[in-house]
């Protein structure tokens, strides 16, 4: 019997706990009156956000962001474009059976036709085939460089943000120094010091001189998260440094980094194209949009197609990544919109 009483006593306050309070505990009568319908409308309005919570499927911050993303048209546009480009990068054979390295010199500078959709270039190579095959280098450089800067920048930023003190001072100065070096110039110098250049040399060059923005953002983000109550609470409940960093700081600090990384992916692809255009990027044996754009300039007046088609693909790729980055930013930080 006393147990029953206890239960009853608990039931009322617990239920009311879920709702905004209109009556007070000293005045339960008032609260009941409210529940019976006098201000039901008002109640409903106030309780609305709460109602949906327990019934719908629980969602964390990431689930919420994913839901937001799925309602964003620019996510679909960029997503479809990127899937298409990535597919093209990995399976160029699906799109063409012309060998991009087969260049009969007699076919030089042909206009687009049934045989050569985008025409041919100076050496007589098929521009369509070269454009299709050129996607691979761009996508690999973009994705690998971004992965590299997230690792380098993320690590440096997280360390200096979390530990602070002299480590922060040193790392911040190092970041400043690298910030002072223009990416393109540094990459040019770096690349010219290698005899055998591959895709990975380009990735290294862009990665080594491109991580600073990520580091700064990571640092700021970690500092904010580090001071949050749940990190202090985790410490108070016995969590060690590794656990705090891995479980609490990083998952909460990574969002802005993802946004910036996605956007910079596009700019790295553009920078690779610039390097290749200048003749210092990928070796001539590799097929790259930048190199093709460069060689097309010589025949610009007679056959502009050689320049236009790879340029369109390059622009669309860069645009898609930047658009995706915008969509991700909107999803992860709705306040920024």
């Amino acid at each position: 019997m006393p147990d029953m009483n206890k239960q009853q006593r608990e039931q009322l306050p617990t239920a009311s706990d879920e709702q905004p309070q209109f009556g007070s505990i000293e005045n339960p009568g008032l609260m009941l009156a409210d529940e019976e319908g006098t201000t039901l409308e008002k109640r409903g309005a106030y309780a609305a956000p709460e109602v949906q919570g327990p019934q719908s499927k629980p969602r964390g911050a990431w689930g919420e962001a994913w839901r937001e993303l799925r309602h964003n048209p620019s996510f679909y546009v960029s997503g479809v474009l990127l899937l298409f480009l990535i597919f093209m990068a990995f399976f160029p054979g699906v799109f063409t059976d012309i060998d991009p390295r087969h260049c009969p010199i007699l076919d030089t500078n042909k206009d687009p036709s049934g045989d050569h959709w985008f025409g041919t270039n100076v050496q007589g190579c098929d521009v369509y085939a070269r454009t299709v095959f050129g996607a691979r280098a761009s996508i690999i450089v973009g994705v690998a460089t971004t992965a590299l800067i997230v690792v380098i920048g993320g690590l440096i930023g997280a360390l200096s943000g979390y530990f602070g003190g002299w480590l922060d001072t040193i790392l911040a100065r190092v970041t400043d120094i690298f910030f002072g070096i223009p990416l393109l110039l540094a990459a040019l110098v770096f690349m010219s010091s290698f005899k055998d250049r591959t895709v990975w040399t380009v990735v290294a060059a862009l990665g080594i001189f491109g991580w600073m923005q990520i580091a700064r953002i990571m640092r700021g983000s970690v500092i904010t998260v580090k001071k949050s109550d749940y990190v202090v609470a985790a410490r108070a409940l016995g969590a060690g440094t590794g656990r705090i960093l891995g479980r609490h700081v990083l998952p909460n600090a990574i969002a802005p980094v993802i946004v910036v990384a996605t956007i910079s992916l596009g700019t790295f692809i553009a920078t690779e194209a610039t390097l290749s255009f200048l003749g210092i990027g990928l070796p001539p044996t590799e097929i790259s949009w930048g190199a093709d754009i460069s060689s097309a300039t010589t025949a610009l007046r007679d056959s502009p197609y050689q320049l236009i088609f790879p340029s369109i693909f390059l622009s669309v790729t860069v645009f898609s990544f930047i658009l995706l980055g915008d969509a991700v930013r909107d999803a992860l930080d709705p306040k920024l919109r």
Partner: protein
Amino acid sequence: MTTIDTKKKPEGSGSAGAAPLLEVDNLHVEFRTREGVAKAINGVSYDVSAGETLAVLGESGSGKSVTAQTIMGILDMPPGHITGGEIRFHGKDMLKMSKEERRKIRGQKISMIFQDALSALNPVYSVGFQLAEMFTVHRGMSRKNAKLKAIELMDQVRIPAAKDRVDDYPHQFSGGMRQRIMIAMALALDPELIIADEPTTALDVTVQAQVMDLLAELQRERNMGLILITHDLGVVADVADKIAVMYAGRIVEQAPVRELYRQPTHPYTKGLLESIPRLDHKGRELYAIKGLPPNLMRIPSGCAFNPRCPYAQDICRSDVPPLHRISAGRGSACHFWETVMEGEVRG
């Protein structure tokens, strides 16, 4: 409905004569900042036994939270520096322990409840995951068993339909429910002492009472020590066994709860009691202690309260009053405690 842990037999609150669980002894903490040195704690001593509730009362900046952070070992150092004193847990000075030893005490022996549960819970994990993690990490339980334990704990802190809500995220709970989760987290590893730093300040009044009752009940059941930090005199009256009132980093009055309410012996406590609104004084102007709390970088000489004190005389401006022992468990850091004690509490 609620399953109650019966491993520990309740021994009645405040088992007299037993060695205290935790003793803070003449603790000094200061913050060294660019603007100067702020003396946040200037010789605080108090103790808590198993099953006992100590309420630490004081306004913002009185050092009550800093003391708690120092006990927990979560004080930001630097700028914080512990310049003196001991904190003994089961007689052993925690300030001399290694980092690893202290970490093992946190959460398992001494645990803490924070003011704002929404910000004290990690937003990217479900509450069930966060609760279960306490068991997987510290008790080596399997994920499945840990989740069952998490549901059991949520039941114990009276979250309705715990089984359905275990996968919900912190923002999907109401304030009161969130604070219950926070309490569950703190209780997960069966600590001997809980420090609750303003556990009900972020809640509205009706929910405050429920959460406070729950906390008090769980404490009795498990015979834990409880340090309740608050600035709300109303919260402590029903729950605490004894009260320590802090002002400018010192304890100005220490007393069993009933005696303090009936007969304060420090002008500051008296002022606090007099500034509580009372129904029978309707229409009368509410009393307020004049002046502002002191700047911790420039604490007044002598008694820190002297510029605001109606009893202040020359000696108060020159000599720091020691904590005069009035009776067992009762002390006042006022030169004129006898006069204050005789005076009636106006309201």
